[in-house]
């Protein structure tokens, strides 16, 4: 009989403690961010989708070696290049040299797993992570990023 | 007597009770499951209650008696329902059916 009543009493007490805790929380400030109206800044190392890095001329640093393409586990990078002849002054005389120029750098973000293998594998520091995370669309095609175009847009 | 003054006449209630009673009888005869028969018998009880209440309202000198009687009927009906249904459940457990004909068949 004593156990019966003590259980009732202790039970009621534990319930009251719980109510006290939630009551205290009731008056604390909110911790959430009203998302579409207010966005938070991502940390420095945040790994968004990749982005090409430009050199001083505003051209992509990428030399189209294809390392990132090979490192990618999901095969979501596809790039193309063409050889462009250009003239360079070597020891006082002009020589024509061939150089690969990036013509296409597509990222299929739908399969990208944001692992960062491409950035790590790049020996030229030509790709980096963006800080973008507001990515939502009804259209699958919106996630096929043409990174070259994005670079141009950024420059202009 | 106009249609709209029916509620002040004893006969209306008696007719209503009679119809409910008839429905109860019909259900009791035609239903083939125990539960259905129980539902029908509840109708019969209600019909008799209406009768009692009607006489209580229109003829009896002390209108308390009829109400008390109806309350007793309710108590008995509740007890009857409980017992009847527990019997139904027990029958179902034993014979796997509440169909009265099949129960008879099973008994041989």
């Amino acid at each position, binding site marked *: 009989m004593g156990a019966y009543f003590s*259980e009732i009493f*202790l*039970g009621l007490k*534990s*319930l009251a*403690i*719980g109510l006290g*805790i*939630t009551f205290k*929380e009731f008056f604390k400030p909110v*911790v959430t961010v009203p998302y579409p109206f207010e966005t938070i800044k*991502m*940390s*420095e*190392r*945040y*790994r968004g989708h990749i982005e090409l890095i430009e050199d001083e001329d505003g051209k992509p640093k990428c030399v189209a070696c294809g390392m990132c393409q090979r*490192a*990618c*586990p999901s095969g979501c990078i596809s790039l193309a290049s063409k050889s462009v002849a250009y003239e360079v002054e070597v020891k006082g005389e002009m020589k024509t040299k061939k150089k690969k120029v990036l013509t296409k750098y597509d990222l299929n973000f739908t399969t990208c*797993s*944001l*692992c*960062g*293998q491409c950035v*790590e594998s790049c020996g030229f520091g030509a790709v980096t*992570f963006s800080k973008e995370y507001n990515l939502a669309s009804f259209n699958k095609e919106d996630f096929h990023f043409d990174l070259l175009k994005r670079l141009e847009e950024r420059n202009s | 007597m106009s249609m709209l003054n029916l509620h002040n006449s004893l006969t209306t209630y008696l007719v209503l009770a009679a119809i409910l009673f008839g429905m109860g009888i019909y259900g009791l005869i035609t239903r083939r499951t125990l539960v259905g028969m129980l539902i029908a018998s509840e109708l019969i009880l209600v019909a008799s209650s209406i009768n009692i209440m009607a006489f209580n309202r229109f003829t009896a000198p002390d209108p308390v008696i009829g109400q008390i009687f109806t309350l007793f009927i309710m108590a008995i009906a509740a007890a009857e329902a409980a017992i009847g249904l527990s019997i139904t459940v027990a029958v179902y457990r034993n014979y*796997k059916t509440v169909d009265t004909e099949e129960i008879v068949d099973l008994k041989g």
Partner: protein
Amino acid sequence: MSGPIHIRSDETFTLNVGPQHPATHGVLRVKMEMDGEYIVKAETVLGYIHRMHELMGENRTYPQVLPNLSRLDYLGAMGYTHAHVLAIERAASIEVPERAEYIRVLMVELNRISSHLFWFGAFVMDLGGFTPLMYAIEDREHILDLMEAVTGSRLTYCYFRFGGLYNDVDDDFINATRAVIPRLRKSLKKYDALVTGNIIFRKRLEGIGPISAEMCRKYGATGPVARGAGLDFDVRKNEPYSVYSEFDFDIPVYHECDSLARYNVRMDEMEQSLRIIEQALDKLPEGPIMPKKKPKLIKPPKGDYYQAVETARGSFGIRIVSDGTKNAYRFKLRSPTYSNMSLFDEACEGMMIMDALAMMGSLDLVIPEIDR
């Protein structure tokens, strides 16, 4: 409410719990043969999000598999990548700098706490209390912020590398972590008062879902399930890997074998993880985070390698059968919840459905990890 129940089979009906059910936390299906509220027989149906990670592991090079591992268990991803890098380091004999080892332990333990916090919230939500989930998520958010600042991602980390780490931690992180620890301790006390002491909560868990030590052994259950059954088993202690042998921490063990014991184990484990984090922060040595000498292409010599780690859910093992190429010949993932879940069918027989679902919650299921 347990014990032998004599149930006639002809009065039962089949209840499909899942694949879409609030209590299964994902796409798990349990076909339950019910007699009223009692479960007569249960059969778990898996594979709704089976992705064949093992085949992917055979088709990709070792570094390429690394991000896959964190997709197994999205709540405690760090521990799974840890297992992979440890296995490859064991196989290819790569030395790991001490600083990297400490940071790894730090990260894994932080991740363990965040996983347990989320489990705590989800478990109480299974029992019908929604608010603790929100508190737990808020606390977890602080940990995720810490980990994002270091690893760059919040959920599916790809931070460990063979032989070291992707990048180093800075003083800001260390200070922030030190600041988070007392905060978490305070929260744990709050949870204790709000949930653990609550009579409704205790009544729902005490004596519910008994899993004995013998049953654990027969089914190979590990982690908090085994520790809640009185088994003193933790891979971190029993088979120390990384630098765990240098930390002073306890393994919480409860002998009640019920859901409450498993709950208590996890709640105590968070406290122990905090202790490990404190020690790791104190002992964190200076130095490089990547080895000086590291093979460019990882090609472990021919042979079998097995590496077990203690993740938030139990003993996770990776078996790599190497044939000396850059791909694994066989890449086997032994996931702890798979074994833990396999005893559910037997354990829930004769239980009421709400007790069975409470027990399912106490197993801490992450479905992608079961299905792999």
